[in-house]
């Protein structure tokens, strides 16, 4: 079973690379980040690193999300439209194995994307660091410090977050009939997950006046959608300006893993019932 998932994932990965979609988005994101480096001359002073990090992580987040919705949908519909899925599923390949293969293949592509961009952001930050530190010293404020471990942890978290998006796209793709529908609904789900924190905050606010129905709806929203905004702690992790509570990274990773398992299970169940 694992070897079949591995082979499907491998071919999925290979196919995605050869389609050059990854290369395209990677170049786009890199161009975006590099193109904004000169903007720092508007003088952010010792806030420069924060500006660069915000921008880099923003690009990683935006382009990564696009890739995470479009790539798996495209790979899934490509196989179904081209009837390659028929050929594969007539072999001793389970539907679940097929879908998991698609998931791991797409996720590996996103891994390449995340770590490549993180490396780029890291290099830019490290190159600029001495300058900024010197300036901060002159102003006698606490200089920021780039943490390589933080960068790595952040990349890992982003990769997990993108994995959740991939699994959501595959779940929608297993239920929907067309590529466009999958991309649209998938993007809306991602947007909703990105905004879940608003619902969470509203619920937690004792001063908010809410009807029971509203309260119930908000509560349901926070249960269904993962809070993806919670993974955006790059600045804290990398520049260490405010301290990250110990265990934040591991608890976020754990909750991502739980979400992944649940969503993938639902996706496999839906895909088993689908007519190919």
């Amino acid at each position, binding site marked *: 079973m694992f*070897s*079949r998932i591995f*082979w*499907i994932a491998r*071919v999925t990965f*290979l*196919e995605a690379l*050869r*389609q050059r979609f990854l290369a395209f988005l990677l170049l786009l994101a890199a161009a975006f980040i590099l193109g904004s480096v000169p903007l720092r001359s508007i003088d952010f002073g010792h806030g420069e690193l924060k500006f660069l990090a915000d921008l880099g992580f923003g690009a990683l987040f935006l382009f990564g999300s696009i890739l995470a919705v479009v790539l798996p949908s495209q790979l899934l519909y490509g196989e179904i439209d*081209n*009837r*390659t899925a*028929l*050929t*594969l*599923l*007539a*072999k*001793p*390949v*389970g539907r679940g194995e097929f879908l998991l293969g698609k998931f791991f293949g797409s996720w590996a592509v996103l891994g390449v994307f995340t770590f490549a961009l993180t490396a780029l952001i890291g290099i830019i930050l490290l190159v600029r660091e001495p300058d900024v530190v010197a300036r901060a010293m002159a102003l006698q404020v606490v200089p920021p410090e780039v943490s390589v471990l933080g960068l790595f942890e952040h990349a890992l978290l982003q990769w997990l977050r993108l994995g959740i998006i991939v699994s959501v796209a595959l779940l929608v793709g297993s239920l929907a009939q067309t590529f466009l529908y999958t991309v649209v609904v998938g993007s809306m789900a991602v947007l909703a997950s990105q905004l879940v924190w608003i619902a969470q905050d509203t619920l937690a606010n004792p001063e908010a006046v809410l009807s029971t129905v509203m309260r119930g709806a908000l509560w349901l929203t926070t249960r269904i959608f993962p809070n993806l905004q919670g993974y955006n702690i790059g600045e804290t992790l990398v520049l260490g300006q405010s301290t990250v509570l110990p265990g934040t990274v591991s608890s976020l990773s754990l909750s991502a893993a739980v979400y992944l398992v649940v969503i993938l299970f639902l996706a496999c169940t839906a895909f088993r019932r689908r*007519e*190919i």
Partner: protein
Amino acid sequence: MTDKPAISVQDLTKDFRVGLRGVKLRAVDHLTLSIPRGQVYGLLGPNGCGKSTTLKIVLGLVPATSGSFTLLGHDSASPEARARIGFLPEAPYFHRFLTGRELVRYCARLSGVAADRVDAATDEALELASMTEAGNRRVGTYSKGMLQRIGLAQAVVHDPELIVLDEPTAGVDPVGSAAIGKMIQAMRQRGKTIVLCSHLLGQVEQVCDRIAVMDRGRLVLEGHIDEVLAQRAVHQISVEGLTPAARQAAEEALSRHGAHVLKVDHPRQTLEDLFRRLVTGSRD
């Protein structure tokens, strides 16, 4: 085990819901069929009569509305049964970004070929499909004939007992079709069971042992090819140098025995034979 049919279908019905209002479309209508082992079985019928749908149901790719079926004596969903079949779907497209060889290797892995056998099995399958040379090109660059042949290679790479070919010659020129016919015969000689859907009736007649004809989802004829085709009451004699006098004498002689001539004309060669004598072969 081996006396069980390769495919057995009992009272199979399939309705598709089409359109927004979910109108029912009956693609397969109470079909009962038994395909024996070790033979080439032709499944014929006009477009849309439900051949592909029947095969997909039997292979566990599409759920049936009602009825039952077995594949090599097993439930189709069982991996044991599916590991022993090879399937070439109609109008196949494969991963365009892989080379032919990569595709066949991939299929070998998925079909459970042992890791140390994968290379040899891939080479054999490419050889059988005459795709050894083209194997290093991307599938996206293949002609229709090559697509069907690489499809055949991926279907047989794990040495399956039962090979299901859905219109393997669609869109392929006569020389390529003849080559596919030869491959089918080669596989039959190795004792495989082959199910062939095809509109090339001439080829079906040559390679199939039994045929079934479907129309609008129903079975209209089933039997051994010689039995269903033979017109036992009529005979044909080919003669050279038949002068009018000789013809009259022959007719008189025959009528003395109570036989009479129905038709005298010139045999005609098939366009396919003529075509194949004129051209050397495709460049694939």
